[in-house]
């Protein structure tokens, strides 16, 4: 009786806007295998690198996430985990390492210094590596606890699971402006690098 309804006439099958069943299953498979075996490239510079090593050690164990194979060659890595502060002298090195990683690649900015310059608001430190390379996940902390880093990694895994192969823009390599080497406008970089909020008042010396 109530089951003899036919589908309403307004439902149409529109393959251009909906993912097909095969594409979603394929996406799921590909993303599952990618996210559960992300090989990290630990770009460890300072204290966060020690917490990264502690995360990889026995108590917190990155191997559960498929990440125990640290790839120190960027050519074989999936995730660049920038752990630690990045001074200006190291900026071209980081850019070069990012460019050497093949797609698909992601970036985790671990710690306050990699995310925003941290407590080093001075002449020497890049105020956030997102001014140099595109970042997927920011993990706050100084240094983040290993649980914090693991949360960030799990967040990246969820991000990877949400990717779609049909989205062609997702694997685009970011191209810096050949003249200046910057990949976001200079005014945006200056805006991101300004001291903000409470940190302006901390020193009471106006600086």
């Amino acid at each position, binding site marked *: 009786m109530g089951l003899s309804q036919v589908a309403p006439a307004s439902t149409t099958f529109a393959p251009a806007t909906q993912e097909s069943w095969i594409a979603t299953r394929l996406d799921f498979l590909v993303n599952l295998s990618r996210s559960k075996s992300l090989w990290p490239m630990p770009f460890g510079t300072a204290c966060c690198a020690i917490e990264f090593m502690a995360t990889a050690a026995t108590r917190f164990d990155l191997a559960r996430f498929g990440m125990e194979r640290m790839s120190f060659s960027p050519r074989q890595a999936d995730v660049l985990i920038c752990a630690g502060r990045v001074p200006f*002298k190291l*900026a071209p090195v980081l850019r070069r390492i990012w460019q050497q990683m093949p797609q698909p690649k992601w970036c985790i900015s671990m710690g306050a210094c990699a995310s925003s310059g941290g407590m080093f608001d*001075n*002449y*020497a430190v890049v105020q956030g590596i997102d001014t140099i390379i595109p970042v997927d996940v920011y993990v706050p902390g100084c240094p983040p606890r290993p649980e914090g880093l693991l949360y960030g990694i799990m967040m990246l895994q969820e991000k990877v699971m949400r990717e779609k192969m049909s989205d062609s823009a997702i694997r685009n390599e970011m191209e*810096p402006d050949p003249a*200046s080497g*910057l990949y976001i406008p200079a005014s945006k970089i*200056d805006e991101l690098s300004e001291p903000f909020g409470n940190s302006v008042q901390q020193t009471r010396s106006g600086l």
Partner: protein
Amino acid sequence: MSSPFAPVLPGSAIAGGAAPATPRDVPERGGPANPSAAAIAATFPASFIRSEVVWGDTTVYLRGDNLIGVVRWLHDDPSQRYDYLSDVTAVEYRDPEQELEVVWHLRSLPYRRFLRLKVPLAKGAPLVVDSVWPVYKGADWLERECYDMFGITFRGHPDLRRILMWESFREGFPLRKDFPLRGRFSRAEQLRQALSITTEGRYSMEELSVAQAFEDLPEDMRRRLSGGERTGE
């Protein structure tokens, strides 16, 4: 010390005496002076300006003209034997009238003594002082850092170039008081300069001379480098 590896014990030149102890109730000024201060005043009266004892440390102020002579004497003389150079650094005061001081921290292991030497340099004139590298090899990087951060030239240093900042760093000398905390250029400009260090500039001319790598560079790079373009770090 006949063989290089016979144990060297600090305090070997002190005959008897109590074992060293944690200093207590150190007076702010006054207090027992390091006997080397009086010895320097007696041996180098032309270089000696004054000495003072602050919080237990003896500081000797010297004129810069014969610094290497004083330091060599402190190293070689059997009554002084300052065999260990702990630090070379500089201090610029907030008062613009006050001179910039270059500071050496010397330690005598046989006598267990600590001495601070200072040479004040007037700010209007070029900041030049003798290098102590001929006496202490450990001064190599310490003096390079002083040059990098303050712009002080050390006469006689074998290889005085920037060490912490990159060689083509154009903003100045960071630890000077007239250098702002966040640098002179905007953040985007600093990033632009940092990212533009040329690839071939990552090697100094000395390094490129190895393996005749210089000849392997393309013609235009060779022309630019031999024309004096400052290479990277």
